[in-house]
């Protein structure tokens, strides 16, 4: 804008006679009818997608309003879920959702960072593309398959570890297990089944590839000049990674973690298959019984009355808002990290 203005001025001065009839040129070209139609159609497509996405939130709110206006603020603090008796809230399921997601993140993030570093820095270049598509494949494995694996295989094999943690770290409130007798070797192991811990491991496997692909993308964008600079100063490979790749990819690591968290919060079937639902705040992650918003919806939608459906919509709305906030934060962190600026250099 500014530049074009200046150049026209300088052109104007010398031919003083012609300047009188010279009017500022219109820089806006007329694209013609077909192009105007094309732009309108493209805008329409974008607007349609936007409308659908906004409708998701709008309609959930509209349907949930009946339940929300009746429950009021107690919707956030009540633990029970008896909508037809008027006693319902998401305190328990929300706690369960967050706990499952946190357990998942604890397992998924080291796995994702290690895999991303392996693919970017250590793997032979010829294998790299194959490894990347394998990780993508892992993200597309249906969640019901992970759920099956967790239910029929993992559950049985993780019990010993859960019992061991409960015995030696049971003094820590999160790892406490009520009703288990650690000194009795013949005690049944069912207290340790269907727990937040098992569900968290299953969700971790679904979340890790997503976090991994974000991190891998950011790591691979670390500037070559700085990498070689580190090597030239005598750094080992790990020294280079620690001083160049990891600081560069910090935004991507945080963003990838939060994207994984967003996915873990909304996971339904894998969690539903494993946990046995309880409607009370259950902070003991190793103990039988847990709950999550999405599995609550999957569990209760079939038998819900009209008001019960409205209450479920309210729970869905809460889940939707939570994932939306986490996702927005994640994408803004990824976008603001230095990785976006690397394309200039």
């Amino acid at each position, binding site marked *: 804008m500014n530049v074009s203005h200046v150049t026209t001025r300088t052109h104007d001065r010398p031919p003083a006679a012609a300047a009188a009839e010279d009017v500022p040129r219109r820089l806006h070209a007329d694209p013609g009818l077909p192009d105007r139609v094309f732009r309108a159609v493209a805008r329409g*497509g974008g607007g349609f997608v936007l409308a659908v996405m906004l409708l998701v939130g709008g309609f959930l709110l509209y349907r949930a309003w009946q339940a929300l206006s009746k429950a009021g603020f107690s919707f956030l603090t009540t633990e029970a879920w008896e909508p037809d008796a008027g006693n319902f809230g998401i305190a328990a399921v929300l706690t369960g959702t967050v706990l499952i997601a946190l357990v998942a993140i604890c397992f998924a993030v080291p796995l994702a960072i290690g895999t991303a570093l392996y693919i970017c820095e250590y793997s032979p270049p010829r294998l790299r593309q194959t490894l990347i598509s394998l990780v993508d494949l892992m993200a597309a494995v249906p969640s019901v398959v992970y759920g*099956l694996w967790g239910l029929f295989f993992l559950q049985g094999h993780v019990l010993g570890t859960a019992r061991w943690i409960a015995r030696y770290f049971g003094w820590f409130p999160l790892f406490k297990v009520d009703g288990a007798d650690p000194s009795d070797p013949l005690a049944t192991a069912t207290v340790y089944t269907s727990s937040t811990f098992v569900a968290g491991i299953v969700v971790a496997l679904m979340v890790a590839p997503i976090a991994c692909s974000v991190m891998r993308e950011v790591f691979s964008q670390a500037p070559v000049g700085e990498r070689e600079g580190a090597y030239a100063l005598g750094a080992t490979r790990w020294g280079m990674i620690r001083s160049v790749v990891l600081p560069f990819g910090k935004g991507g690591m945080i963003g990838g973690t939060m994207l994984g968290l967003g996915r873990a919060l909304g996971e339904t079937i894998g969690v539903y298959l494993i946990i046995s639902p309880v409607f009370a705040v259950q902070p003991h992650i190793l103990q039988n019984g847990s709950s999550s918003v999405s599995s609550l919806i*999957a569990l209760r939608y079939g038998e819900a009355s009209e008001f019960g459906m409205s209450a479920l919509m309210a729970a869905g709305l809460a889940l939707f808002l939570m994932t939306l906030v986490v996702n927005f934060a994640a994408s803004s962190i990824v976008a603001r990290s230095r990785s976006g600026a690397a394309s200039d250099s």
Partner: protein
Amino acid sequence: MTLVAPPRGDNAMSAQNSPRTTLPSKSTSPDAGSPREPRRRLALLRATDVYAVLGAAAASLSITALLFTRLLPFSGGLGFTLVAYGLFLGLYALLVSFDEDGPAVRDRVAAVLAQSLGLLMLAALAFVVVYTLWEGRKALPHLNFYTQDMASAGPLDPLAAGGILHAITGTLEQIGIALVVTVPTGLLCAVFLNEVPGRFARFVRTIVEAMTALPSIVAGLFIYATAILTLGLDRSGLAAALALSVMMLPIIIRAADVVIRLVPGPLREAAYALGTSRWRTVWHVVLPTARSGLTTSVILGTARGIGETSPVLLTAGFTAVTNTDPLSGPQVSLPLATFEFIKSPEPTMIARGFGTAAVLMALVLLLFVAARVIGGRGPGRLTRRQEHRRVLASRRDAARFAARFAARAEEQLDSGSRASAPTRSAS
């Protein structure tokens, strides 16, 4: 070490000896250095590294075995693996520290950690896939598994009766409808994001990016609230397809957006420079260039959509009968059938569930292989067949031009002009 030291010594000596540093050192150093200098080994792997890994592995395994069988009251495979791995790391660091200094030891340990984490992830993937296929081995060999539905087969019937035909048809119809909805909309939106940039496009992109992690059950709930409760639609295949579309749309848009952004700018600018309008540029330059990437993004979106259970759970209903009409009546899909099968305590039903999951997994694998075959190339790169076709087309163009030149020359000859020589040479 030995390689770095001699030149430094030479330089220092020559600097002390005389002010004319360069010539003497140049003339002497090759004579003195070259015969004695050993040939460098360029291989990165040294024998001591391999010995360190093997020794640490052997030592950690034997110590752990000793601990688990003799000294400590531990048992269990998982604990054994964890203890052995921890010991391996420690012993490996110890062995390396005999030869190397601190930073090198940390480098080695970090390399081992990263590689084993990557290996663990791949092993987990392979294990989940193989476990599903292996558990499905009881149901998969029965041919009736693919040709019958569960209408006449109860939970107690053996695997020789009943099958998942209803789920296969349901999945194919639902994903087909979802693709009809999402492919045009998604590609149009991706084109919009790239070709009509502005504040509105940026806003749409932000919303779409936030929506890629839309919980799938919320997509189902949304369609349940709109199509079923408000518009009065049945629980049907169409409703399920709509729920899948809501879920797949942001995924496809995001992937297609990235691919279209990779189309080289000069191609687009060349098209504009030739006076092409925007939509013709999109239609004839941008989309064909990005074709393989766009196909990949659609296939990957399909692979995600085909395995989703929760949107279908709320909107499709459940039936054991084959229902080919997506517009009315409940219709079941593969993930939903898996889910319903394994909720039963009967071993045959669980075997059917694993068989269904194996079929689903095979479908996803197939889609992935297809995506890999089609999308292995960047934008603008051609396969050999495409290249061949381009060559043929350009030959056809050349022939057409030649014919036109010849026709024009004849015309000019007929009208008595004398410009036949240059045109003949041109043709």
